[in-house]
């Protein structure tokens, strides 16, 4: 019981610490590319905000607008790509190397 409490406290502290260290700057939303999936598949941001993708896979991926209006280069493992969305709307994107990987950014 006592040990469990300690573990819980430690976990809470770690969450606070890691969360604090990892938190994106204000106005930035992070999307993970993991297991050939964009996570989360839908993110909502305010107009003018940026989305940053980080490739957590061992394979190269891209972040490419379905209408080809922007694309990252091939992202190696751990590499990131950011894009700023200026106008409200619903924006589809995909991985140009693995087209079954699709996701959406909603800008409000």
């Amino acid at each position, binding site marked *: 019981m006592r040990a469990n409490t300690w573990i819980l406290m430690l976990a809470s502290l770690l969450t606070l610490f890691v969360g604090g260290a990892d938190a994106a700057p204000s106005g930035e939303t992070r999307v993970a590319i993991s297991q050939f999936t964009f996570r989360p598949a839908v993110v909502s941001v305010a107009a003018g905000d940026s989305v940053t993708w980080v490739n957590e896979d061992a*394979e190269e991926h891209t972040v*490419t607008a379905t209408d080809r209006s922007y694309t990252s280069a091939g992202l190696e493992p751990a590499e990131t790509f950011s894009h700023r969305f200026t106008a409200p709307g619903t924006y589809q994107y995909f991985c140009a190397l693995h*087209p079954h990987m699709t996701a959406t950014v909603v800008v409000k």
Partner: protein
Amino acid sequence: MLNERARVDRRRFMQCLAWAGTGLVWAARGGVLSSSVLGDAAAAGDFTFAQISDTHVGFAGKANPDAGGTLADSIAALNALAPRPAFVLHTGDLTHGQKAGAFDLLAESLKAIRTERIFYVPGEHDVFLDGGAEYLARYGRGTLGGGWQSFDYGGVHFIGLVNVLTYKAGVGGALGREQLEWLRQDLAPRGSSTPIVVFTHVPLWALYPAWGWTTADGEEAIAMLRRFGSVTVLNGHIHQALQKIEGHLVFHSARSTAFPQPAPGAAPTPGPMTVEAGALRRLLGVREVSYTESSGRLAAVEHPLA
């Protein structure tokens, strides 16, 4: 539209002039221009050619720590073929994501292949970043539109299709209307007994759509090919030797020289497959295709590196 046609014809005419000294001549057949390779072997008869695919120059993942070494070994395997292949088809993904210098490195490496000529189609790794600009600047000569082409050799009609320039989100490869219309015109004057070889990157048929291993409008091309008595479709993209037979049509997917991928659905993702060191070279390699005039048939022989 007329202007576009005229421009293309002039472009091809200039290529005719440029190539006259290198053993190639252009011939008009049924109003559709195609190229023919000069020489004894170009007359109908038995010959062989080879396929190399998915060289992915620039790949440095753990699935193959020495992709440069296995490319060199693949070239050695091609050079060991007897008889020497008349030409080689590269079915795309020359580079791994168009990394700086990768096209140069590939061109330098492939100079070691002992063959008359190498024909190319791009993979998505070669074109996604710049819409194919660098690829076409290097390999677009003698091709139309986004790099598609056809030529005749030894009585066989070869067609290179490009299905990665208009990659469709959520689907996979796509040929597009312009290329399909060109294909229709290219095939129209040919008799159904003409053996046809199609080479392309992404499988034309719905091999495994859940991983994007399909061409959205591939069935339209396949439908145009059905009237021919012998059709061989060679593709890359899925990094494994796989065959499908559908009537007179035979579809062959090729091994990569760089890294293997899992069988369709055999893993959670289609990413590079890491296998034990001793098994890797059995999963990489090249392909030899022989044409026998008497039967009108083409036979594919796999040449894994081990």
